[in-house]
């Protein structure tokens, strides 16, 4: 049941360079890992998740890659309050009003 329908908004992933092909002057931690690319687009044909697929991107390019995500989410947010920021301004307003 992993068939994804043509036209679905998805993300594909590609390894552009394997570790051994990466630039020699890189720091060790970067040189040890592959160089990867992720692009979103509309699936050009029905495809299976985790298999190769072709997408049409927003610029109209056809790109092949491993189908990794369906309807990929933007999951960045604000998150919980940051207490360290909440009191900023109180003392400064006192200085402004000469209440220090």
């Amino acid at each position: 049941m992993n068939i994804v329908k043509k036209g679905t908004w998805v993300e594909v992933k590609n390894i552009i360079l394997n570790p051994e092909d990466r630039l020699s002057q890189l720091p060790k931690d970067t040189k040890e890992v592959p160089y990867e690319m992720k692009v979103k687009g509309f699936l050009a044909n029905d495809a299976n998740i985790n298999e190769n697929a072709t997408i049409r991107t927003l610029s109209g390019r056809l790109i092949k890659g491993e189908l990794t995500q369906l309807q990929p989410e933007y999951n960045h947010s604000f998150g919980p309050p940051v207490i360290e920021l909440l009191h900023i301004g109180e003392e400064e307003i006192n200085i402004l009003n000469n209440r220090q």
Partner: protein
Amino acid sequence: MQRRNEIISNSLKVNYEQFQTSPIAFDYEKMMTVLGYNIKEVMKIQKEAQVGNTPLWELKQLTKLIRNISPKGKGARILMKDEAANPSGSFKDRRASLAVYEAKKRGFTGVVAATSGNYGAAVASQAAKQGLKCIVLQEASDSDGIGQPEIIEKARKCESLGAEVVQLSVGPELFYTALATLDETKYFNASLYSPYAIAGVETLGYEIASEVQQQFGKEPAAVCITHAGGGNVTGTARGLRKYGNIQTKIIGVSVDLKGLHMASDQDFNRKSFTTGHTGFSIPFTTNPDRSDVPYNAARPLRYLDQFITVTQGEVFYTTELLAKLEGLERGPAGNTSLAAALVLAQQLDEDEIIVVQETEYTGAGKHPVAQLNFAKKQGINVYKGNPEENKPGSTIVIPEHIQQLRVEEIDLERIRESYLRNKLKNQNINKLNTEDKNFLAKEINRDLNYIESYINRNSSVLS
């Protein structure tokens, strides 16, 4: 990538060889004028594209606060150019507008930009207006697939403006991927470092100079400019000079990220700032031609009078203060120069003016709350205290009060030496001709004697 120069030349349609005047030197001013646009024409193009003419706000509350803590008679008036009012929310629209206009005029069907910053959204926005396709390449995540909230937000914004976003893992191979994309698509290279991208920023300096003149009848004593790749400093300074401001001090300000390696997969998410930091500003100031064009049009060392750093915690603090005292909620990266201005204003006389020359939009991902939560998740120790305890990659110290804000000077003499060392690495410095020496003198904003003295001091070491 043997075809680097060919691809670069095809994707810009500018023959850079015409500017070379000797083995080391090139004619920078000639390169900046082959565009064929003077500043009035640039303003016209930007007006058509709804870019520029942003408000210049007087930060009255912050000025008053600074005067209350400064010695008597000190505390310059602080002005801020609200560049968040541009179509995509930052001054980068100025850089993108001219590049995309040029792409359209030259018959390209699309544009490519390699940037993890606000420039991507700016190019996407301008491309949308001009009906061109747009591809933005970002260095977006580490090898675990984790990306900083700020970069994810920038990808979202590009996609919402109709651009294709190619997200890459950490590494300088971004440059080659961008070249391969240009080669495949035959799109225009909307490089951050082309003459277009720099000429586009000149209007920002020009607007500041003319507005301050009209409102206050004088030149600003200083303009604080958030400094990364050098385009912001170069373009703003050139615009100020073109208006006729010669006294105004050009102050570059970067977030201090000392000790973090910019090509390191593991360090990638240990910083909270993705731009305006020393990881860009130091290498680009000391070696500007490490870019995606043969000659970088951003040459900050020609213009910098002062180069200072502030800490991540100080910028977050300043961002909160701007919101709470001035009612202006803006993104942290643009507030780097405001953090410095709050300190520098205390040293200037009351009747002087200091200008913070940009703001940027804010929102999920591009906000101190999002960025500090992310930092905490990465194991960074976030606490309130003395910013002197700041250690990039380990701690973010949020100042407890305004008097704790400090700036740190970067020694421009060392930066100049470093520039010359990079430039003359494989050269016999005893054989430099007059053309070369004059060029080097202009590059570092010093006279010919300075260069002669440098050669004398180093001739045995370097030759």
